[in-house]
């Protein structure tokens, strides 16, 4: 049980950041990219809300570094805009700047 206690007392924080995207493929990419960032424990994004919920260890990472990693794979995150190059590498259905969700 000691193990769980150590998790509980770590600097666990929860925050929502805005991430732009379209579809379930975007969702997979955004969440997996977030989870690959060291210190992120939980990530959940929905197309409807355009929000990514993060639970992370504040000692190891920050929403800013997660946003950077997500922007690097083509999704505008928080205040960081993805480069044209990263954006254009997305599959056609994920091109949120041109394809409308509705």
């Amino acid at each position: 049980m000691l193990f769980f206690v150590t998790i509980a007392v770590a600097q666990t924080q929860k925050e929502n950041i805005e991430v732009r995207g379209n579809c379930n493929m975007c969702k997979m990419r955004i969440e997996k990219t977030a989870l690959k960032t060291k210190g992120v424990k939980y990530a959940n994004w929905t197309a409807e809300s355009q929000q990514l919920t993060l639970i992370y260890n504040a000692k190891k990472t920050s929403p800013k570094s997660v946003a950077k990693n997500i922007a690097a794979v083509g999704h505008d995150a928080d205040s960081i805009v993805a480069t044209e190059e990263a954006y254009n590498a997305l599959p056609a259905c994920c091109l949120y700047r041109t394809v409308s969700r509705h």
Partner: protein
Amino acid sequence: MLKSYLLLFYLCLLGAVNAQHQVSGYVYSQENSIQSPLVGASVYWENSTSGTVSNDDGYFSLAQSPENTVLVISYLGFKTIKLTAGFDKPIEVILISDTSAALNEVTVSQRRKALQRAFFTPKNISTIGSAELLKAACCNLSESFETNPSIDVNFSDALTGNKQIQMLGLTSPYILFTQENIPNLRGSNQAFGLSFTPGTWVESIQITKGAGAVSSGYESISGQINAELIKPLTAPPLFVNGYRSANGRTEINLQGKYDLSSKWATSLFVHANKRAQLTDNNNDGFLDAPLSEQLNVLSRWQYIDAEKGWVAFASFKALTDSKQIGELAYVPDLHKSKSQYWGGELDTDTWEFNLKTGYVDPEIPYRSIGFQSAISHHKQVAYFGNKNYNVSYSSFFHHLVYQSILSNTLHKFKIGLQHMVDVYDETILTTDITRNETNLGAFFEYNYDGTAGFNAIIGARVDYHNVMGTFVTPRVHLRHAFFDDKSVLRISAGAGRRIASIFAENQKFLGSQRKLFLPQPTQPMYGLLPERAWNYGLSWIQKVTFVDRPFDLILDVYRTQFVNRVVVDWETPGAISFYNLDGKSHAQSIQLSVNTSLNARIDLRFAYKTFDIKTEYRSGLKRVPLQAENRWFAFVGYNSVLEDGKQWRADVTLHRVGKQRQVASFTTPSNFVSGFSLLSMQLTRQFSNQFSVYAGAENLLDVKQTDAILSSEDPFGAAFDSSQLYAPVFGRMLYAGFRFNL
């Protein structure tokens, strides 16, 4: 959004194997009567932030929290629709173009693709959904597998009408049955337990081939079958089902539910069946199916508080069942304990109580804790001619599980404790036997959900058992997706062990005059050792598109190798011997299946299975008797377009069973009996969303085994034997029924 994810975690907590409680469905567009999947349609809950879009197949899946009541489906250029009901089953939505004034109605229907092979989990799981369960002619769990090629249904004996199911070439004692993840049908419940769960109570069934989850126990050897029952919160307010078959079986099912508040709901399930008609289609003077009566009642209570993260279930079940078997002229009051006519009676009374609770911290959705507790009692009083067998069996089960993550949600784990006590008190012939088993186990299961198509579940448990001692059970499941997720390879390996309840599991031999031989007459366990086995397997799923139709090609190869087994040897006429395996025993199965849909209306399934099932008997290594080496399966399902709640549904299933080996009798040596085909069909007319009528036929080709009971003319003689059954006794069987719900 968090709440909808919370709900997902509750489901994991309660052990639902997949997203059963997700709302899912398909969105189509329709133009000139041609339907095509609508990609990218918005599907969301009104007044919430929870939503999704349909994928390339028009498919969507979305979690539902209690406050989500109105589902909105919209797509530019089409009429937006709102749905408020029918979320318990996959939804089929056809959006109508906004500009077409002639067609301004929206069709919503249940999607009937009800048999699904899991694609994303490392375990090889197929799910039988509620739509598929409707295709089973009748009536209880043992008959729910006839449209699924992963499970084979065998005939147990010529007296009780009991059916025995089989997976990967091994019969039911080697399959772990769980009901909502609580082990069920264990010990003395084994032989008839499947017929004690009415089919209409079942919401879905998950079949796991190969080693099961360590969290469910160490007893699964060839696989695991989990049945989820209908949940009070999602049940219809009222459901009535009536059924009548030409062999005299009448069934009535009544189900009602009541919402006590938005968090509390309760359901009452009542099932009764009766067969009073004497039938003897094979003219051997014996009843083809027993005279029987059953009353079965289940009360369920469900509580969910999504905001605080609590969920709970409580269930109480009571059953009384009686069967009369034997000669047509047998009347218990006149002929019991005499040798004028052969007959028998089996009276069973059971009750069970179980409780499940779970908690998820709403702020930390990846952590949960769950506790399950179950108590059951089973009492059977029976005699078969001059042989009696009584058993009283009590079972206690407690299960505590904690789930969380390592570093992030790609690495999940489960850790827990399980405690089981089984108390047996049996009387076989004139001998009293008591047996107590106690087990305390601890398990750990790690689940890796990789980013590059690789998933793994690695688990182990350590058990301390009063008879088997301390032992470790490891199990591994690996999955890898290739070629853009068009191919999936799964590999599994694991150990299992169990203590055979030899009398309960082999009751069918009481319907013979075979003499019983045990290694030693004394307790405990008459010198029989616990059964131990390893199961290995691999499965390949290939999705291909051929002439614009999607095909699933599935290859499953599994092998179970016994380290020790209680060999049931009835090779010698007039004898039944139990002894420990001395040599080899294995069951190997290869299954090749193809599933496709010709269009949105017609589903097709084909399967071929080949088995190699051998055991070393005292007389040598032999194929296990009454096991077909080859089996073929074909299924065609059709449903018409649903209009104003009206629909036609039809399906036809063909099972071809290859030749089987019969053991020697006093008059004939061991030989092979030729194969046969079982053809069944069902037709359903749904008159409205509330009312439907169905009729069907089983064994349309009228296959009958004429020598089902050997020496039926001299039932008290040494050659009498009702256990050599390999085919139906009854022949063609017609039935009809109705379903009504509010």
